[in-house]
């Protein structure tokens, strides 16, 4: 366990993330141009999507895929209710802010997904390629759960939650690229993988380092700007909630019989919080919620926590409990 944590902390990816954090805290002018940061995330989504699809083409579709997607959807829908109850019981957040934060924690962070797959690859622990589809399926149910909570608790949350809103959420760019690349990987299989391997496999760790450097800068600056909105109890939620969500995912993974690598990925997905898709959706659906609270929690605390502590912890636990 300690060895795993040590390996993770001394990996180039994590060290570049820490470099970004330190640069942000030290008010360095280091920055990655916005267009390049967007290109990097497109590259990472394309890469993991394609690799997942190619692996499914190699091993074939199994019933486990449907079961795991259903489990992912269930987790994404259920976690906001747990998060909301925890926030209301332990923090002073009002119902609208709590519903918004809960929605962020039910959804997933694609970058955390990329990070856990990178660590698993580094440790030579295999995971099922179809988890890319599970990640995509877990993006949106949490938003619906947050709206249900808000509608019930604050008599709001349904103002813009119409068909147009749901279409925007379901077809946001990251989901389209992730699923699209997955489909292309599944269609082209080993032939496609042979063509793209230098681009999407060999170059992947270097691009991930560059992206995590940027994420360190963004997380550090976000934490500096948003810290004033957080009490100790609210900040503590951002560390406790991932552990509760990961434990729920571990129980689910055991129930459906996932492998060690896949259990670690499902735990990480459940433990991660959205900071791209859900914040935009919440601005449309719950405009009274303060966006700085949820973003500071998910990006400034939970993302670094998962990257530095959570991922090695989830892998270690998965190694003990999974088949």
């Amino acid at each position, binding site marked *: 366990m300690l060895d795993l944590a040590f390996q993770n902390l001394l990996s180039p990816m994590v060290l570049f993330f820490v470099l970004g954090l330190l640069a942000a805290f030290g008010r360095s002018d280091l*920055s990655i141009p916005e267009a390049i940061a967007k290109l990097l995330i497109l590259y990472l989504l394309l890469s993991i999507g394609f690799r997942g699809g190619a692996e499914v083409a190699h091993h074939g579709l199994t019933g486990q895929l449907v079961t795991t997607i259903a489990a992912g959807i269930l987790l994404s829908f259920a976690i906001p209710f747990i998060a909301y109850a925890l926030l209301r019981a332990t923090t002073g957040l009002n119902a609208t802010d709590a519903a918004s934060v809960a929605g962020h924690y039910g959804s997933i962070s694609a970058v955390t997904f990329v990070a856990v797959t990178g660590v698993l690859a580094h440790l030579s622990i295999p995971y099922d390629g179809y988890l890319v589809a599970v990640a995509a399926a877990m993006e949106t149910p949490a938003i619906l759960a947050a709206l249900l909570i808000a509608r019930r608790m604050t008599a709001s949350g349904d103002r813009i939650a119409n068909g147009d809103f749901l279409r925007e959420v379901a077809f946001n760019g990251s989901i389209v690229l992730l699923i699209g690349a997955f489909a292309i990987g599944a269609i082209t299989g080993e032939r496609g993988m042979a063509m793209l391997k230098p681009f999407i496999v060999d170059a992947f760790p270097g691009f991930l380092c560059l992206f995590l450097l940027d994420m360190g*800068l*963004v997380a550090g600056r976000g934490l500096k700007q948003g810290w004033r909105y957080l009490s100790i109890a609210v900040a503590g939620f951002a560390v406790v909630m991932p552990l509760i969500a990961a434990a729920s995912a571990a129980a689910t993974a055991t129930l459906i019989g996932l492998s060690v690598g896949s259990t670690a990925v499902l735990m990480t997905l459940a433990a991660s919080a959205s900071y791209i898709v859900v914040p935009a959706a*919440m*601005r449309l659906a719950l405009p009274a919620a*303060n966006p700085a609270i949820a*973003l500071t929690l998910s990006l400034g605390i939970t993302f670094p926590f998962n990257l530095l502590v959570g991922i090695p912890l989830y892998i270690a636990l998965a190694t003990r409990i999974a088949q």
Partner: protein
Amino acid sequence: MQTHPKKRIDVIVEAPLMRRIIDRLDQADVSGYSVMPIVAGRGHDGLWTADGQISNATQMVAVVCITDASRVDDILNSIFGVISNQIGFVTISDVAVVRPERF
């Protein structure tokens, strides 16, 4: 040069709302509009900057259109449903244009 009085509507709004504002302007049949990113600002919650924001949830945009005074109320009624609870503001100002047939 002869100029003609018109009204300019400035809508400073959260980026996720942009498409909805534009849809309402299209429905109101305005002759044109411009959208500009906001780089930084200061509001109720203090200093804010777009630099380093990973999500467009915390970005702001300015939607600007110029129209005839007789149409201002219709346009405001159309967009008010979208922006009434959001972060941002709307201003109406007097401007002069040289080609009135375009607005």
